[in-house]
Every structure is written in C-alpha cells, then in structure tokens.
C-alpha cells in the first residue's frame, strides 16, 4: 500500500477508532447527565449505526449514482424479515441467516432496478416506482401468513454468541460498528475504482456517459443491487437488535425517509455523509424530544421528526453539499 493510498483511508481509520473508543466515555457521559444509563447510550448508538448502514446503502445508488430511491424500505424490510423468518420458521442460525438476508435484499434490488431502469425511469418517476414497490411489499407482508401477517414475527430471546444475541450491550454496538466500518472502506474503494467513476458519470450526465461508451444500464443495476444488499443488512441487524419485525417497521415509509435523509443532510455522495447525517439527525431529534419533554412536562409525539424535516429544508437551502460540505469549505454552495 503506497502512502498516497494510505492517506485516502486515514480519515476512515481515525473515525472508526474514535467510534470504537466511545464506550470508554460512557461513564463520563452518564455522569454528566446526558444519558440515563449505559443502556440508553448503547441503544441510541446502535440505532444510529443501523440507520447509518441503511443510509450507506442508499448513498451508493442515490448519492454516487444519482438514482433517488424513495423506497429503500423494500430492501431494509426484506433483510429484516429474512433474518426473522429464516430463524423462526426454518431453524437457520442467525449468523447463517445474515448473508442470506443480504443476498435476498440484493436480489429484490436487482429485480426492481431491472424493471425500473429498463423502462428508463429517472428522477420523479424512479422515486415514485420505488415508493410503490415498498408499499406493495408492506401490504403483502401485512397479509401473508409466512411473515406472521399483521401480528409480525417475534424472534425468541436466546442470549448467546451463536444466536447473535448478546448480554452486554457493547457487543452489539461493536457488531454494528464493524458493518459500518466495512462499508466505509468499501465506499472509499468504490470511489477510487473505475466502476465508481462510471457511476458518478451516470449521475452527472447519463446521456453523455452512454455516448462515451459506459454501459449505463449495467452500472445502475450493479449500484442498486449493492445498495439494496447493504440496506438489507441494516434490516437484518434491526431484527437481531429488537427481535421483532412487523410490516410497518420493516417496510414502512419511515426507513425509506431516514435512509435518504441521512446522506443528504450529511453530504450526498460522500464516504462520511451517511454517518455524519445519521448522528446529526438522530442526535438533534433526541435533543429536541428532551427539551420539549422538559418544557411541557410530558413527551410530545412527532417533535423529532419535525426537526428532521426542518433540517432537511435548511440543509438544502443553505448547504446543498451537506454538513460535510459546510465543514470542508466553511460555507454552502
């Protein structure tokens, strides 16, 4: 590895090391009253990492490739349900179920991509068709017996490394962090590859890319498949963390929105965008909930989401390249 190559990965390694060291700060954060206890901290961090992973998936097709999906729930949900159903109905081990969940998510991505891209859907049309597919999956999952229908699927609690269920909350934190770390590095590899260059070319000007000999259909298909597979892993991790899925969680619009908000707020088409966006969104959302709770004496539903929406509008208005763009240049456009 030449020094130039190492330099490209140094920020990623530093970020991973910093996140990995976070548990050391837990006693201090809890002591300062920021978190009720270590579990609150870990639950929040694990949720942020799962959303980061889903957003990292979205960022590949949406950020680098410019294909704005409004239906990544289709992939998240497929991963989540596969992870749950394989264990409960087919007795598959959790670790063995994970790659299958990932592959199934990728397959769903490839099929939706093939249909949409062959029909030459772009922009608003692509957004709408992905949204519709996610809704079809949601309605089907709510009505078919294999997914447990409206009651959902409960994964039995069996603590043990072999079941991917851990007693110590830090263990699941490191598991989720490992996946995020792998995708951070994968993202950088992608950026520096020929495929990554083609993908960006498709985003910038698809017709020009095709004229220059880029097989745009294949490039977009590969991107949506990889994108879907990563988001499916996020779904599978969600199942392992909460041990329960139903149609509104797995295929709900909420995850499609979170998966696209995080990269856009953080910095679309960048390695760190999804991570920074997820931390900013969920962090600010939690802060708003706490402040409102203190001000009104009771929890008010929807406050965190109001913050998400406002943040999205503000970022688009004043920092189109996201928080990362703001950090890099100290200014917007």
């Amino acid at each position, binding site marked *: 590895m030449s020094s130039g190559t190492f330099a490209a990965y140094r920020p990623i390694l530093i970020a991973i090391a910093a996140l990995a060291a976070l548990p050391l700060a837990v006693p201090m954060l809890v002591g300062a009253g920021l978190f009720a206890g270590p579990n609150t901290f870990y639950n929040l961090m694990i949720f942020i990492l799962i959303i980061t992973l889903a957003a990292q998936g979205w960022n590949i097709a949406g950020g680098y490739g410019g294909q704005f999906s409004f239906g990544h729930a289709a992939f998240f949900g497929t991963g989540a349900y596969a992870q749950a159903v394989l264990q409960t109905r087919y007795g598959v081990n959790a670790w063995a179920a994970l790659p299958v969940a990932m592959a199934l998510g990728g397959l769903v991505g490839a099929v939706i991509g093939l249909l949409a891209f062959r029909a030459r859907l772009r922009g608003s049309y692509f957004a709408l068709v992905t949204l519709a597919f996610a809704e079809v999956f949601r309605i089907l999952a709510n009505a078919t017996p294999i997914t447990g229908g409206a009651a959902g699927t409960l994964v039995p609690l069996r603590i043990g490394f072999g079941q991917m269920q851990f007693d110590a909350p830090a263990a699941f934190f490191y598991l989720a962090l490992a996946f995020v770390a792998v995708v951070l590095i994968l993202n950088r590899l992608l950026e520096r590859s020929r495929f990554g260059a083609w993908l960006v070319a498709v985003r910038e000007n698809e017709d020009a890319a095709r004229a220059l000999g880029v097989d745009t259909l294949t490039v977009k298909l590969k991107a949506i498949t990889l994108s879907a597979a990563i988001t499916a892993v996020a779904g599978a991790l969600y199942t392992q963390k909460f041990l329960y899925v139903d149609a509104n969680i797995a295929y709900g619009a909420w995850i499609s929105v979170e998966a696209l908000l995080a990269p856009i707020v953080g910095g679309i088409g960048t390695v760190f965008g999804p991570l920074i966006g997820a931390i900013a969104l969920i962090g600010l959302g939690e802060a708003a909930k706490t402040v409102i709770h203190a001000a009104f004496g009771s929890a008010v539903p929807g406050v965190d989401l109001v913050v998400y929406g406002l943040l999205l*509008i503000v970022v*688009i208005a004043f920092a189109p390249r996201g928080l990362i763009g703001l950090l890099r240049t100290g200014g917007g456009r």
Partner: protein
Amino acid sequence: MFRSYPPQIVLEAVLNGLLTGAVYALVALGLTLVYGVLHIINFAHGAMLTLAMFAVLVAHLGFGIDPYLAILPLTPLFFAFGYGLQRFVISPASRNDDGAILLVTLGLSIVIENLLLAIFRSDTRSLTLDYSFSVVDLGFALLSLPRVIGFGVALVVAAALWAILALTDTGKAIRAVAKEKLGASLVGIDVNHIYAVTFGLGAATLAVAACLLMPSFYVNPRVGNAFVLVAFTVVVLGGMGSIAGALVGGLVIGVVESLSGLYLGESLGQIGIFLIFILVLLFRPTGLFGAKA
C-alpha cells in the same frame, strides 16, 4: 379467493367506486397541475390535504361551520397558503432545482404531518353530522349522500379549473410556463409568480377535497399518505400534467379499488392500485393521456 357476487352488488361497488374516484380525481388534480407546470412531484401534497382536513375539523368543532360551507373560507385561505409556500419557502430553498424541490417538499410533508401529530396526537377523529349517514335511493342501489355531493362538487371544481386554465389570462400564462418557461419569461410573464399561483391552485383544490371528504371520512395526522399514494397513481395513470387524465384516472382508480376490495378483501384490496401504478410506470410512463415522458 374469488367469489361470485350478484350483479347488483357489483354494480353498487362500481357506483361507490366512481363516487370515491371523483374525490381521488380532485386530490390528483392539484398534483397533476403542479407537475405539469413545475415538472416536479409535490411530496407535501398528502400532508397539505391532512392539514386541510384538520382545518375543516377545527372550523366545525371550534366555530360550528358546516364542512360544505367551510369551502368558502378555506379555499382562498389554502390558495394563499400554497402561494406563500412556493414563493417564500420552496422556491428560495431549492433555487428551482428539480431534485432539490422534490426534497424540500418531502421536508415540508414531514414537518406538517408531525406538527399535526404534536398538536392533535395520533387519535382518529370524525365529524358527526345530521346527514353523515343519509342515503340516496336510486331504486337499484343505495348511495351515501355525502359521497354523492362529493362527486358532484368534484366535477364542478374540475370544470372550474379547466375554465381557469383555458379562458383566463392567468390560465394562459400558466400554460405558457408549462410549455416553455424561458419563452414565457421572455414575453414578460413572471415565472415565479406563475409557479406560486399554480401551487396555490393545487392547495385550493385540496381545501375543497378536504371539505368534501370530512362529512363521510375520518382524519388523523397520517391520513393524507393513503390519499397521496392513490393520487400519484391517478396522476401517473392519467398522464402527468393532464387534467382530463386526472379526472378519468381518478374514476378508474376508484372503481378498481372498490372492486379489488370486494374480491380480494380489505387488506389486499389496495394491492390493485399499486400494481396498476407500477405497471403503468413500467410500460406506459406517459400514462393514458400524456403526450411526453
């Protein structure tokens, strides 16, 4: 799974589908109008419908205004709201870039929906009116009175909207901007003003739709989502930007929903709509009436 029904029940399902479809068409009209002129999907459309439905609720519970009378104050109010939203929020925030407009309207929908959730909580509410359960007896079928009224008013509004576009100077300017933005601005049309007027008209049709829906429907902060997905389907089916397409598309979708509900049951009934949505997008993205992709 498929049962056979006597023709009368099927006929009644078709008629009810047409009645619902007219309101779908009305919701879709605003969406298609905005798409035709600004060439973007307004993702806040559903949330704005929810807002309008809550406005009807508050007007009735707070001021005792009948939902049908509420059309008079709410329509201009929502026109102003839509106008302001486009002129002072969407346009400046997105610098009229397509992708950015899409995301700003998504942001607005999240904000509106969750502000309503924070204020009204997630409870489902409905109005109790003397005529909520009145029926019209056609001899061969019984139809709900509020839905018959909804059908009639929706058609009148569609005709009015068509007249505005076809006969007035503003309508002419809207059509000019839709066809050729640059050319329109060169002949002295204020494009930003026309964008905002279009958005205002879209919001105004939602106010009417909300007034027509509330006597026979319920409202909660998420109710608009169900309508907007149907409205997307209607718009795609009818051809993005086509008023006649939205009208026919709305009626078709209403009937499809009613019949698939009859034959597939409540939970799977909605599948029919989305399958049409996906099939049209994949095989005929210009819709039935659209001219270009």
